[in-house]
């Protein structure tokens, strides 16, 4: 996105926020609903620990930190690009043609036009709980750990964003693609909330490493907690999320380009 593109993006988002803020009651309810999503995600962790003392070798506080890291990352991604799932509506109705005749990137337009400001609720809630979770889990307050706490959710958000975009792209080939996308995005959130030690080898290889969900919360949480990986991974993996995010983003961008090219060659 160039600087002109970003200016346009900013104005579109601002207009969308103004538009939705007109309906105050409805906006407030949406905001509460968005917070509730975050609450339920974390509550499920608490419920689990009522019946088990530890999960995959990790105590409640530690898993709670992973869950909040994943939660904030997901909430940020959902806010930024979650509406890209509406791509299938655009493809089906032919509205994508109208998008293609404007001088902005297709993704820029799709994410800006349907932005859902209510999703801010989940982000704010997640950030607040993250601070609490980090202090309860006994994360040492050092410049490095603070930097890690800041960078990890952003890198995680990029990973989730990549998944949102890549799965939405399926709509270019197959219009009824909603469930696949949800499986990998919401499913990915559920996966990333827990230590990857609880999953079987196949699941772990596929989701944790191949897709990169282990870098959303698990490895950076180990670094924050100053714990060694029970699976024997090297300590630097805790600082790898930005690199993992770059790889996922690159892959998603590639898939997206192929998708747009396919649309233009089929006109489906």
């Amino acid at each position, binding site marked *: 996105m160039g600087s002109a593109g970003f200016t346009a993006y900013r104005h579109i988002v601002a207009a969308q926020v103004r538009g939705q803020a007109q309906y105050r009651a409805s906006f407030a309810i949406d905001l509460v609903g968005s917070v509730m999503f975050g609450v339920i995600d974390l509550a499920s962790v608490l419920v689990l620990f009522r019946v088990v003392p530890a999960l995959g070798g990790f105590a409640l506080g530690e898993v709670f930190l992973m869950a909040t890291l994943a939660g904030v990352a997901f909430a940020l991604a959902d806010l930024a690009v979650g509406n890209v799932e509406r791509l299938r509506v655009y493809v089906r109705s032919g509205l994508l043609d109208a998008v293609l*005749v404007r001088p902005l990137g297709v993704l820029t337009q799709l994410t800006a036009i349907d932005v859902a400001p209510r999703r801010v609720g989940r982000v704010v809630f997640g950030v607040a709980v993250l601070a609490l979770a980090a202090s309860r889990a006994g994360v040492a307050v050092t410049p490095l750990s603070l930097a890690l706490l800041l960078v990890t959710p952003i890198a995680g958000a990029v990973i989730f964003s990549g998944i949102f975009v890549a799965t939405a792209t399926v709509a270019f080939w197959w219009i009824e693609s909603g469930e696949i996308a949800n499986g990998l995005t919401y499913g990915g959130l559920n996966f990333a909330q827990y230590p990857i030690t609880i999953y079987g080898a196949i699941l772990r290889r596929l989701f944790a490493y191949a897709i990169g969900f282990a870098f959303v919360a698990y490895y950076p949480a180990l670094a924050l907690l100053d714990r060694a990986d029970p699976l024997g991974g090297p300590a630097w993996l805790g600082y790898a999320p930005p690199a993992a995010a770059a790889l996922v983003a690159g892959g998603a961008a590639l898939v997206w380009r192929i998708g747009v090219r396919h649309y233009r*060659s089929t*006109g489906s």
Partner: protein
Amino acid sequence: MSVIETRGLRRDFTVRVKAGWLRRRTRVVAAVDGIDLTVERGEMLGYIGPNGAGKSTTLKMLTGVLSPSGGQVRVCGLTPVAQRTRLARRIGVVFGHRSQLWWDLPLAESFALLRHVYGVPAGDHAGRLAYARRMLELDAFLDTPVRQLSLGQRMRGELTAALLHGPEILFLDEPTIGLDVVSKQAVRAFLATLGAAGDTTIVLTTHDLADIERLCRRLIVIDQGRIVHDGSLDELHARYGSRRRLVVDLDEPLAAPLVAPGLTVEAVQADGRRITYALDGAVVTAGDVVRRLTEVAALRDISVLEPDIEDVVARLYTRREGPPPR
């Protein structure tokens, strides 16, 4: 300087046909089958054809939405798909079927956003908007969210939206579809004024031939992906022998039929007291016929019917055996 130039422009689609429980047979269909088109700056071009003739497909290739399967295409000197965003700043597009406006925002706010989307200087934007507000009478609904606008109001909004960045070419895909008579006239009058100014090239697809009669000096008819006519409306009439009609009401039936070169009787009604003649304009005039009729009968009433473009085009559409005779 030509603003649109295509050579052998083609577009194939692969159609999957069910052939058994899971098997699909694929078939390649040419929606646009070799179109050569040169459009000069300031032209107003009507692009018509039956459903599925390839009108929209052509338009999509010219605007960078769809990549061609073959041939060359240059619009404003650019390659549409490869240089999509650069081209988008120099063309305006109105799709009659889909809105370009933000559904939940008031029209005024959509226009303000488009200034940022296209990066238009504030002064230019204000000037063009003021012009459109006056010409299209937008003031009454400028603050209404787009979703609450009537179709006619929305279309006037769409036209404005497509012009705020001062495009060199305006593409209109069925801009009058579904509009009431008053809105149609408003849209046509606006486009006529815009075209008369000569700065904007207008390419229009339509099913409403009145749009063409009112607006376009040049008419392109395509059928099955090929151009079957490229020229003026008059040339179309001349080529397909469409003729003016003279309807006369007489006090008494003619004693003997009127015979003249270029004159044929099309219908005789009301016990022979109403006769419809078809006139070959190159050979005989309505005046000749009327003068000769008054010599032999008492004329009560006459009327002259202009050739009907719908008839011509319908005849063109039904010729399904390739290019017409030259």
